[in-house]
């Protein structure tokens, strides 16, 4: 049976990197410090070079990508970047992604949190069966049912609308969200609920006024997971949307690439600008992102 294993990395990684390493006696690594750094810098180079080549390449002229592949641009072509920033297209695809992702997060939390509360605190007939039923969703990617999903979205009249992307995303994020939230809700001290019930506070009020405010960290984690999954989603919008004005950035990027084909300098600038929001988010919220994404990895 699918069980709570998916939660382990989140728990473990919650106190990530650095902090504990300083206190503990050293773990043994077979290499000395210098060879270690050498290896690390080599791998770091392999990670960074493509990213740098992309960002810097966006500042070159097309011909210079060939004649001067490794150096900095002789003349920085700011126009490549400004030209994109001036188009409505760039802002529109980011706006679309933001709308889709925000709605997905809001709905995911609104739907998953009450369900998770019910599974955490209420014992009703069939609760175990229903929980396992919802958790089935951990295993199955969009792709398995993408064609019937397409037909369903069409029959609901949601084809080529943002809701046609949002609603299935909410559905597919239920499993991991309910699992994480239920486990966290259970950790809250039991006396709280008991005394609240004795004092005449109903379950719903307890959920709204006690559980939710006390569970902000896990709510943030779930929000991060469903936001990032939505922000990076490609297959579902690809199948649902066909008006470029409604594309999220992932589709917009492929669309742009298809249009400019070999004008690599522009494509590189466009890639850089479209991945910029994710990069900034990453720098600002590293801890949440790492904890959230490793926890939500089941969803790929």
């Amino acid at each position, binding site marked *: 049976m699918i069980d709570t294993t998916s939660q382990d990395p989140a728990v473990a990684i919650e106190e990530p990197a650095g902090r504990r390493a300083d206190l503990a006696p050293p773990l043994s690594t077979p290499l000395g410090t210098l060879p270690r750094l050498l290896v690390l810098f080599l791998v770091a180079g392999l990670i960074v070079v493509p990213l740098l080549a992309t960002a810097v390449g966006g500042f070159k002229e097309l011909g210079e990508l060939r004649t001067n592949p490794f150096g900095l641009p002789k003349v920085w072509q700011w126009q490549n970047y400004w030209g994109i920033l001036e188009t409505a297209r760039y802002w529109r695809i980011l706006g679309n992604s933001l709308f889709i992702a925000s709605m997905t997060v809001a709905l995911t939390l609104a739907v998953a949190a009450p369900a998770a509360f019910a599974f955490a605190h209420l014992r009703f007939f069939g609760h175990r069966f229903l929980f396992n039923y919802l958790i089935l969703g951990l295993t199955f990617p969009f792709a398995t049912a993408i064609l*019937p999903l397409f037909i369903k979205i069409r029959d609901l009249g949601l084809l080529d609308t943002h809701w046609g992307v949002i609603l299935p995303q909410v559905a597919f994020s239920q499993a991991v969200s309910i699992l994480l939230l239920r486990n966290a809700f259970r950790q809250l001290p039991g006396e709280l609920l008991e005394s609240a019930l004795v004092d005449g506070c109903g379950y719903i009020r307890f959920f709204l006024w006690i559980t939710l405010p006390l569970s902000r960290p896990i709510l943030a984690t779930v929000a991060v997971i469903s936001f990032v999954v939505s922000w990076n989603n490609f297959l579902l919008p690809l199948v649902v949307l066909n008006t470029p004005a409604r594309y999220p950035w992932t589709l917009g990027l492929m669309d742009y690439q298809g249009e400019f084909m*070999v004008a690599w300098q522009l494509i590189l600038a466009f890639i850089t600008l*479209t991945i910029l929001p994710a990069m900034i988010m990453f720098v600002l919220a590293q801890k949440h992102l790492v904890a959230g994404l490793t926890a939500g990895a089941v969803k790929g």
Partner: protein
Amino acid sequence: MAETTSFPATRHGGPRGGGLLTALIFLPPALTFFTVFVILPIGEAAWYGFFNWNGLNLLENFVGFENYVQLVGNKVFSRAFVNNLLIIAISLSIQLPLALAMAVLLADRLFGAVGFRMLFFLPYILADVAAGLIWRFMFDGDYGLISQIAQGIGFAPLHLLADRDWAYVAVLTVIVWKYFGFHMMLYVAGLQSIDRHLYEAAAIDGASSWQRFRFITIPGLAPMIRLSVFFSLLGSLQFFDMIVALTGGGPLNTTHTMVSFLYYFGIGRMRVGFGSAVGVVLFILCATVAFSYKRLFMRDD
């Protein structure tokens, strides 16, 4: 399912007995979403898979297992299936050891360890399409860095992504580039839960650093390794976006995965029945992998 609860008092719906009513309000939205958009489509895929259907006409051209028979005989699909297996192979043989090595190298006090970890994790947060396009540029025969390097040391321009023998190798390279950092993070988390005093004790007893790695680190990390392999298996089965960005399945349909096959040959041509059959195969593979893997390897985790 380990049912441990810290809430014995509420077992029967609590003193006010409002539990059932609350459940009746709290559960239906999640159940409805999940049933309508996840479970029903999976069930419908199983049904549509028996038809030859373009999604528009009446669903009446029942063909039995014809779609599945076609699938088995389809060369592109067989290649796609092998490609999925290759992702698993590369994940286990290169990505996993690399991730493990990096996690171990970054485990001790080391200047900049946190920075390295974050950097290695960075590609994982990029969308697959963005990573795919970045590498499409890197591999480009005319403008890409790799071809430039090859030319710099006297080779002809390398059009790797257009080369039947090399295109998929290129895809696998990008997979390792993008995903090893994620697995490294799992191992970093796992390492933190190993008792450091074991290492001290082992060192006092004269264990070599290899022995300490082999007999303390590896067993300590075993649950994480199992988890990481599990993610690799499931991730491989749903691999798609990057194929579109890197190769579009070409050259000559040699770089498809099962999902990209489903997209180009099922959705792209509106062969709903055929595409659904591919979905069903995927579903069965996912289910089999998930359930048997959990049963075999993750019983006590």
